[in-house]
């Protein structure tokens, strides 16, 4: 059985270096989170993982596709 790379990619990638700590703290403060809480240290790798998981979305060619915001599925 073959393994698909995208499936592997859904598991958070903890070692991405895209988001540095200072930027994270600035964003966290802007989001209203208490950056002085020890909890923030636990959040940092989770946020990096989440943002890394968006990379596959950023690589998709979505040109010409409007966001599907109507939600109600059309009848066939």
């Amino acid at each position, binding site marked *: *059985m*073959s*393994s*698909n790379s*995208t*499936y*592997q*990619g*859904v*598991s*958070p990638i903890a070692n991405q270096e895209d988001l540095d700590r200072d930027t994270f703290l600035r*964003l*966290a403060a802007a*989001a*209203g*989170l208490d950056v002085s809480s020890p*909890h923030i240290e*636990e*959040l940092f790798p*989770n*946020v990096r*993982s*989440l*943002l890394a*998981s*968006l990379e*596959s*979305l*950023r690589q*998709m060619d*979505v040109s010409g*596709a*409007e*966001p*599907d*915001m109507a*939600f*109600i*599925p*059309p*009848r*066939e």
Partner: protein
Amino acid sequence: MEGLELCYMSAGELSRLVESREVSPVEIVEAHLARIDATEPVLNSFITLLPEEARSAARRAEREIQAGAYRGPLHGIPVALKDLYNTAGVRTTSGSRIFDTFIPTEDCTVATRFKEAGAILLGKLNLHQFAFGPTGENPDYGHMHNPWDPELITGGSSGGSGSATAAGQCTVTTGSDTGGSIRIPAALCGIVGLKPTYGLVSRYGLTPLSWSLDHAGPMVRTVEDAALAMNVIAGHDPKDVASAQVEVPDYTTALTGSDGTGLRGLRIGVPAEYFQVPLDPQVERAVREAISLMESLGAEVTEVSFPMFHDAQAISGAILVAEAAAYHRDLLLEHGHKLYPPVRLRLEAGLFISAADYLRAQQARTLFNRQARELLNQVDLLAGPTEPVTAPKLLATHVQAGEEEVATTAALTLYTRPYNITGFPAITVPCGFSDEGLPIGLQLAGRPFDELTVLRAAHAYEQVTDWHRRRPPI
């Protein structure tokens, strides 16, 4: 009739006995309350039990039926609601102690419709906190336990609904499904779970998780019961902005005879991509055997390609966490420290998704939906596993899927998320058991608002198998 037999009868079977007055709703409710007493210390399916209210409602139903005012197949039948369905006068916690004393003043639409149908509310069911997780973990009210092996998870987020239904604690339960939360526990607990088309069942009065992905639906032991429940809860509700204005058929017309003839002529597509991911070989075998059986009964089975299946996790994940963070933001900032830490972390992380990334995910959703619709122009249904694994151990962060170890959350939502993205109807039905005696589910997905075809195929398959009749050892 022995109490345990009543507990394992379907709503369809019970309704025929109730209508003919061979069995009273009072007997049914007492049998279920006794079953709950006996099993709840192990399962922890309920957050709130309503024994006296249920007894009172059962006596009222009994009087009505004796007076000739039979309301229909759910009259006198026990139901229980996931504890994020608002119930007037009964606390609704959403699985968090923050809402331990929250008592809604109004019923959600689904509760209203069940009441009007004469169903009897036994209680409110345990769930993964705020429905934000697929395992059935809840430190505030206790983790949920799988009736087939209490050391294993029920799946989530509607874990209490899965365990209560599978263990005969209740006949009809409800779940909500944002990334698979009806179908995951249904598959892992060995019952039937239907995620209807987006907008078909009102979500008014349910605590949201992700507005554009949330669905409400039934969790039951037979496909007939799914049809009976849908006959009560489906239909337009002006109070839900996403509610679809579509005609609602009699879903029991999808139920054909006991010889599987309902499968004749149905075109079933099996996405090749479903089998290109880590998958327990026992699950693969059971699902392929189920599909072969459907083919032998007259379905036209073809392999199809659904390349964007592999993008479902990324698309759904971005939309879900962004919408969940938006909905729970105030709670998070004020009471974050009171949340289950994994739920808190996922919600907080959602605050970091940019509007551009969220909209990009919605753009990708457009492409995903287009591909899924094109597929369902070629075939009537898509078939495959509901879960790549059987129920994992409680609190296990990773699970073995074939030769690979994968993250539990990612594994459990692998096959379910695509149909939250599209909003298409999808059902899981039991299709076998592992060597360890754990249930395996088959997922069938159909065209939007074509629940009749989904139910028809599921029912026809169910009628020629006996997986749904097996009972957990508890």
